[in-house]
């Protein structure tokens, strides 16, 4: 039972990081129907910018959560600027283009960001300086660390904030309107371009936080770290129903838990024939199974197509 609990804890922590990143994917998709391939790389930039800041502070002898917070505070505007820049340069000119063109452009941006990061930060695996004493807490036989708790708390708060913004504020209303029908929203006085930019802004901000948290959690930063994370987060967004905020959150948490339980128990369940190296397969198969029975994802709108 302890082991099960441990796997679930690890899964929820990993999942909440996925959820944070998945929110960025789902918001952008909801409003311009584009898979922002470069989003994972924005997370990576957040992680590395944060790393640089934290390294400088650690060299001065500073420690503690304040250092991490400072890293996040610097990463957020950096990523926001990056996100806005990408939208303006690589996506906006292609709004009217056939739908695959912005996708290829996004792929180009993704590769470009990876290479730029390699040129700036180098190719080695960089380590996040240890500025935290990371006490462990025990829940029965399972262990949860302070970092894990902070991640759960931070992502929880941010998701709640996003929910409130989207559901209760004027900005959120404008976003939902633009996602539903941009033409009419425009006629109702919504500056759709501005709203799209805000979406990217918010998504990138979340990405920055996720990046620094991921770096702190695993202690490593590298220019290739965005790819897999982005892929998993996108899978989570689709699992939950792309375009749905609640779906992204649910999808992320679910994917994290499924991955960990899968890696943990596949070997035992199949008596060694299928081991932990197949855990990614497991996650994808789950996704496919869900989509066969609910083609719009778990919480996606059962959209009847406009005929």
């Amino acid at each position, binding site marked *: 039972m*302890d*082991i099960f609990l*441990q*796997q679930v804890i*690890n*899964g929820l922590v*990993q999942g909440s990081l996925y959820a944070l990143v998945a929110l960025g994917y789902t918001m952008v998709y909801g409003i311009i129907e584009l898979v922002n391939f470069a989003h994972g790389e924005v997370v990576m930039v957040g992680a590395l910018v944060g790393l640089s800041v934290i390294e400088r502070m650690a060299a001065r002898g500073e420690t503690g959560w304040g250092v991490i917070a400072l890293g996040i505070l610097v990463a957020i505007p950096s990523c926001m600027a990056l996100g806005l820049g990408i939208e303006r340069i690589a996506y906006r000119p292609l709004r009217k283009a056939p739908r695959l063109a912005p996708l290829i452009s996004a792929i180009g941006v993704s590769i470009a960001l990876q290479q730029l990061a*390699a040129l700036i930060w180098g*190719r*080695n*695996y960089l*380590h996040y300086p*240890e500025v935290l004493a*990371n006490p*462990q807490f025990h829940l029965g036989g399972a*262990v949860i*660390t302070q*970092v894990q708790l902070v991640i759960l708390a931070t992502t929880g708060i941010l998701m709640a904030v996003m929910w409130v913004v989207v559901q209760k504020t004027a900005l959120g209303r404008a976003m939902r309107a633009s996602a539903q029908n941009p033409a009419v929203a425009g006629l109702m006085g919504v500056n759709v371009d501005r709203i799209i930019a805000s979406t990217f802004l918010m998504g990138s901000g979340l990405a920055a936080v996720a990046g620094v948290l991921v770096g702190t959690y*695993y*202690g*490593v930063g*590298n220019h*290739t*770290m965005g790819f*897999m994370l982005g892929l998993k987060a996108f899978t989570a967004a689709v699992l939950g129903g792309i375009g749905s905020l609640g779906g992204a959150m649910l999808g992320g948490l679910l994917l994290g838990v499924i*991955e*960990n*339980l*899968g*890696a*943990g128990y596949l*070997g035992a369940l199949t008596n060694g024939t299928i*081991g*932990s*190296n197949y*855990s990614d397969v497991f996650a994808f198969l789950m996704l496919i199974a869900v989509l066969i029975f609910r083609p719009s994802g778990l919480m996606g709108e059962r959209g009847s197509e406009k005929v």
Partner: protein
Amino acid sequence: MPRLLSSLALSLIALGLISCGQSSGPTTGSGELVVRIGASSPLTGPQAHLGKDNENGTRLAIDEANAQGITIGGQKVRFELVSEDDAADPKTGTIVAQKFVDLKVSGVIGHLNSGTTIPASRIYSEAGIPQISPSATNPKYTHQGFKTAFRVIPNDTKQGGELGRYVASKIGAKTVAIMDDTTQYGQGLANQFEEAAKAAGVTVVTHEHTDDKASDFQAILTNIKAKNPDIIFYGGMDAQSGPMMKQIRSLGIKAKFMTGDGGCSTEFLSLAGAAGEGAYCSLPGLPIEKMPKGEDFKKRFNAKYGEIQDYSPYCYDAVMVMIDAMKRANSTDPSKYLPELAKSNYDGVTAKISFDENGDLKGGVITVYQLRGGKWVAEETLGAQP
């Protein structure tokens, strides 16, 4: 349009007919023979720090050889290094190998990883180009029947075997959990270790697999935690074993940790941080201080390239052994110096180098290190023949 096309086509055809095949290989100019040596290692990716280290070791040897002004076959010889990046990817490795063959290099120092060295070795064998690997430890490399495959470092049968016995006898472990990164090197080493450990009476509670790009091992480690082994063994590289070490401790797992030569680097120290205390690793060969010419090499290397990562002394020796064979054969032609290479008996920086009938190093040893006070400290050298 048709006129443009036709003139274009005609010129291309003309060019095609005029030329055919570009000659590469040793070129002469001003009475000096330029001999190209190919070197391949991952210069990008998670192992770039090791790849660069290899390249530096090779370059040091070539620069020093050129400074000596060597004469072979009555001609003054200048060695030229052709360094390529194989990204630790088997496919890229074969492409690099083809390139070297196309360039008609006289010898190859490479590759770094077993996964790249083994497929490339076939290409070199077909072209008759001698290949010395300074760091690939998977036994298969020299057991394919290729006369051109050599290695100046003991292989994993030795490494895995000695470690398996060490774990039982010196560490006194009764149970072990094994993980590998599903690469040819990592899985190969882990399997060798498993065999030896079992033979020494240790119980293997589980053998898990991850991959060489992963960063989160907690699910697998939680599993391992449940089985409560005395020691965890990982076959794989430092980019994974470093973060893995951190996760092991933060999950509250008390088991000891051991890894092979892939994790025995300074990168591991920085990636694992304080969690790494007490970890074991192994490197084929002697510690640099105990190597016959180690201290001297260290000084020369540090002056130019900084800290030694892992294999640069072996790269140096590989180049020198190759040049030594060329001198003894009095020729830089691969078909002429290859038999001499097989009969080498050379006093290298790392050890006395001679090869067995497979191209493996004769009489290799393994040194076990432990992480103490933030540094790797040599514990014991195993497998020395009296």
